[in-house]
């Protein structure tokens, strides 16, 4: 089981967190076109490589955070809480 480094709690079993998928920007609902909105709803880069995604520390600190994960190797970079920028590779926790 993957160890996911929660920015508050430290490394956690992935099963103790909730996965919320690929991170994407929400268009302005007042002005967006159907195409923009449905791109946000449905289309996904789905890369085989580094992916910025959303996790929720549901059994620990209950914070949503973003983390870059390599979808082929399972490698993880440093997590970020909302409002902060993704940083460099964190020390190897494994």
């Amino acid at each position, binding site marked *: 089981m993957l160890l996911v480094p929660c920015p508050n709690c430290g490394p956690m079993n992935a099963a103790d967190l909730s996965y919320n998928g690929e991170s994407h920007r929400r268009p302005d609902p007042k002005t967006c076109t159907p195409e923009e909105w449905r791109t946000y709803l449905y289309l*996904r880069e789905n890369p085989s490589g580094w992916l910025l995604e959303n996790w929720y520390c549901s059994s620990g600190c209950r914070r949503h955070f973003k983390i870059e994960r390599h979808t082929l190797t399972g490698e993880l970079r440093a997590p970020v809480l909302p409002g902060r920028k993704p940083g460099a590779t964190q020390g190897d926790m494994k």
Partner: protein
Amino acid sequence: MGKNKPPAKYSAAGLLWRGLRKQSWPRVWREPEFKSTYDVVIIGGGVHGLATAYYLASNHGITNIAVVDKQYLGSGGSGRNTAIVRSNYLTPEGVAFYDRSLDLYNSMSNDLNLNVMFSERGHLTLAHTDSALRTMNWRAEVNKLQGINSSVITPAEIKKLTPSLDVSADTRYPILGALYHPPGGTIRHDAVVWGYARGADAYGVDLHQKTEVLDILVEGGSGPEGKGPSGKVTGVRTSKGDIHAPVVVNCTAGWASQLSNMAGVTLPITTHPLQAAVTEPVKTFLPTVVVSGSLHVYVSQTDRGELVFGASVDPVATYNMSGTLEFTEELAGHVLELMPGISKMRLLRQWAGLCDMTPDYSPVMGPTPVDGFYVDVGWGTYGFKAGPVSGEQMAACVANGTTPELIKPFELSRFTEGTLVGEKGAAAVGH
């Protein structure tokens, strides 16, 4: 065309003849030379790709086709699924589509002259809650209108069909009823791959194994490098060299996004592993295919005596196929809820395949904004069941240049138009 001799006919008499004369069988397919030009390039040597090639050749006379696969034939989802076939879907479009697939599976051994061992043993989808039972009724009613043999049966009837199930009322997940679909069953998945490969090869289709597609060549598109919408496909770049072709069909699972991105086409897909496992063999005791959506498990027993298990896809998107321990833990717990008597059976092997999941649990089929670039992707967990009909319909789509009625509901454009397919209406484990 037809430059190759038809394959040696398989039959019991042939088996006897060759056995007596100690004569060996010829190759099932050729090792073709790599050519730089084809009429059609099909990416993915699984059931979908091979069936598309086979029907292009057999139904439409198009035989100058290359099927390319980065590994060996059937190395992807075709060889990793749990080989269950059925047609009792929720929506009329789903039912019509899968029912045609079941028809093709029924006559496949004969059509392809290779026994795919279709075992029409009946398919049970268990309901543990009244809402699940309601959904079963819904499916049964839609099925009935389409002429599909599918009905909701009682716990007592379930027990009669499948004595190993615990139908008592005082369990954590009581079995309240089941959707029973007698025409559903299992099939030898590898045989389906080999049957189509052998059939396509006999028509002259070139099957290039260990040939990885590195890029899709597009001209005149509105995106970077001339790719993307309003472009035109000109071929593919592979690990063995470039192939020029006016038509490229993406028939991959697990890598559908990567390949489509190469053409500048973004898909509504995320890729998740679907895990499966088998036990050691025991004498047969489970006569039907059993599925429980609430418990995320499905199980059948092969003629070799192994129980084959599957579950729902893993929640975390990944291209890693190494499998997880928690899958086997949950699986075992849930299987023992259903069949408490098999705790001493042992899990022998687990594996995973990649599933391309779409938002409405339905595939993406047909043309794309790039001219000549077709997709047959997004098959989630039910690609194997749909292999034959997908091949047949994609072949018609490519050959005629129009989308056949049967796959119109599955066009890529539905996501920008917001007209999703209704299988999402009652999403459960869809096996």
